């Protein structure tokens, strides 16, 4: 057995998942509260640490120290299992995202799979079990309604999410995220083909179907992560708190963290597919080939670029949440099945036609 590979993978998992993504989750909770406060002309949490940055730590301690109350009427096993089932898949999907080019000769991706986006969709589709089981195991009305809503919502939007990236895959002819990113680094990001081979009539025309995919992908991502304007499974005005009404302390926090982790991974996937992942614009500092050695400071810059883009995307998620009102449930289903599904299918045909003509 090759111990070198196993140790390298273990280091990447620990650093990327536990030392970067989890703190990023905590920081996005803080950012959410500060941005919402700014939008509503309030101050927001600013007491703990500089700019309230340590608020996340205080929240974490509070969640751990609170009484963990299990109501008597719940189905115990599934009640305990459900919070873990929302958190774990969200973190598992980190595995295929390329978060940098190379550092010290190591590829900066945990598992360089040839089925990258499919892996993300497959694991992310398991997140629904956490919500469904939470709703069912709580054995009371509002959580159950939240769970049922969430199931139908996630199944509906999974379809348009999957279909929306088909045009992109057709254009790049690959399902390996590392290769897709490298292609974008050299020939222009999918949405901004401004350098390399992308700077041509063909590149600009192909940006049209990619833009349509991007709109569908991002909107479906909002629905998949149960964020406003699609947070029907947990909308306060109708369902108290939806599927996690009966949960307290750390079990509630796990649902909360799972939602934010899913949001971060969604942003990471969107950045990887549409905004060139770790690559800088205009092909600056791009390695010549996929396997070329990269100086360590280039590698660090690439990692920094990736996280800068992801954070920008998270801020976009947050601003949308505090700007748009909630959809009604029938509107949500209509949007998913009647509009996005058809547009995504038409987009596939359009891309095929364009690729055939050009």
């Amino acid at each position, binding site marked *: 057995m090759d111990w070198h590979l196993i140790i390298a993978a273990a280091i990447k998992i620990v650093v990327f998942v536990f030392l970067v993504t989890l703190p990023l989750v905590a920081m996005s909770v803080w950012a959410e509260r500060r941005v919402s406060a700014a939008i509503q002309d309030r101050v927001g949490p600013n007491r703990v640490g500089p700019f309230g940055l340590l608020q996340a730590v205080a929240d974490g301690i509070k969640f751990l120290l609170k009484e963990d109350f299990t109501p008597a009427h719940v189905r115990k096993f599934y009640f305990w299992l459900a919070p873990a089932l929302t958190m774990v898949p969200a973190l598992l999907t980190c595995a295929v995202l390329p978060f940098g080019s190379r550092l010290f000769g190591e590829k900066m991706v945990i598992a360089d*799979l040839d089925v990258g986006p499919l892996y993300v969709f497959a*694991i992310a589709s*398991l997140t629904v079990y956490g919500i469904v089981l939470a709703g069912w195991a709580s054995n009371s009305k509002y959580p159950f309604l939240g769970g049922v809503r969430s199931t139908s919502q996630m199944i509906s939007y999974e379809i348009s999410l999957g279909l929306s990236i088909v045009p992109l895959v057709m254009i790049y002819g690959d399902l390996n995220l590392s290769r897709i990113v490298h292609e974008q680094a050299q020939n222009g990001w999918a949405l901004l083909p401004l350098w390399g081979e992308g700077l041509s009539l063909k590149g600009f025309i192909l940006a049209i179907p990619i833009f349509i995919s991007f709109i569908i992908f991002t909107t479906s991502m909002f629905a998949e992560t149960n964020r406003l304007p699609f947070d029907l499974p947990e909308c306060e005005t109708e369902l108290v708190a939806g599927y996690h009404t009966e949960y307290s302390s750390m079990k509630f926090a796990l649902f909360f963290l799972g939602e934010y982790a899913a949001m971060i991974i969604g942003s990471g996937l969107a950045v990887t597919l549409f905004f060139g992942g770790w690559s800088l614009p205009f092909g600056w500092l791009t390695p010549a080939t996929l396997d070329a050695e990269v100086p360590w400071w280039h590698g660090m810059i690439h990692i920094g670029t990736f996280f800068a883009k992801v954070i920008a995307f998270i801020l976009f998620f947050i601003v949308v949440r505090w700007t748009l009102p909630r959809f009604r449930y029938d509107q949500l289903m209509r949007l998913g099945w009647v509009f996005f599904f058809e547009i995504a299918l038409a987009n596939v045909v359009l891309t095929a036609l364009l690729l055939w003509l050009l």
Partner: protein
Amino acid sequence: MTFLFYLFAALALFGGIGVVVCRNPVSAAFSMIVSFLGLASLFIQLDAYLVGILQILVYAGAIMVLFLFIIMLLDVKEEEKRHFPYISFAGAGAVVTAFLVLVILVLNRGGTSGRTLPELAATEAGGSDVHRIGELLFGTYWFPVQIVGVLLLAATVGVVVLSKKELR
């Protein structure tokens, strides 16, 4: 890596037994998901990434969600109380025994021990299993794929028509 094989094979078997043994329908459905996950891991260990991922995406992630969705709407307590007639146990036992005997007979006939399996096609540059499956499906077998697609479309239209009450 045989350790991982035994781990995931045990997981798949454990889930499979759970499907049959669990009284609670939700537990049974959940065991089935566990079994699918074990199976998917076995596929991935055989370097069949696409098949393994599709197993999770389609079966564990989509079909079983619908199963669970329907089961949750049932009265689970009623289901837990239901008793099966002993004749069904006898029938199930007979089927399992017959299947085991068949497997043992097939394996004792020499199985694959004397023969070598055909070599896989040499992996050219960029020739992942996704590419090869894609080339087979949309190159060699394009016609059957189209036929299956049309059949599935007809089935979908049929289901929509049947489930609309006012159409009759």
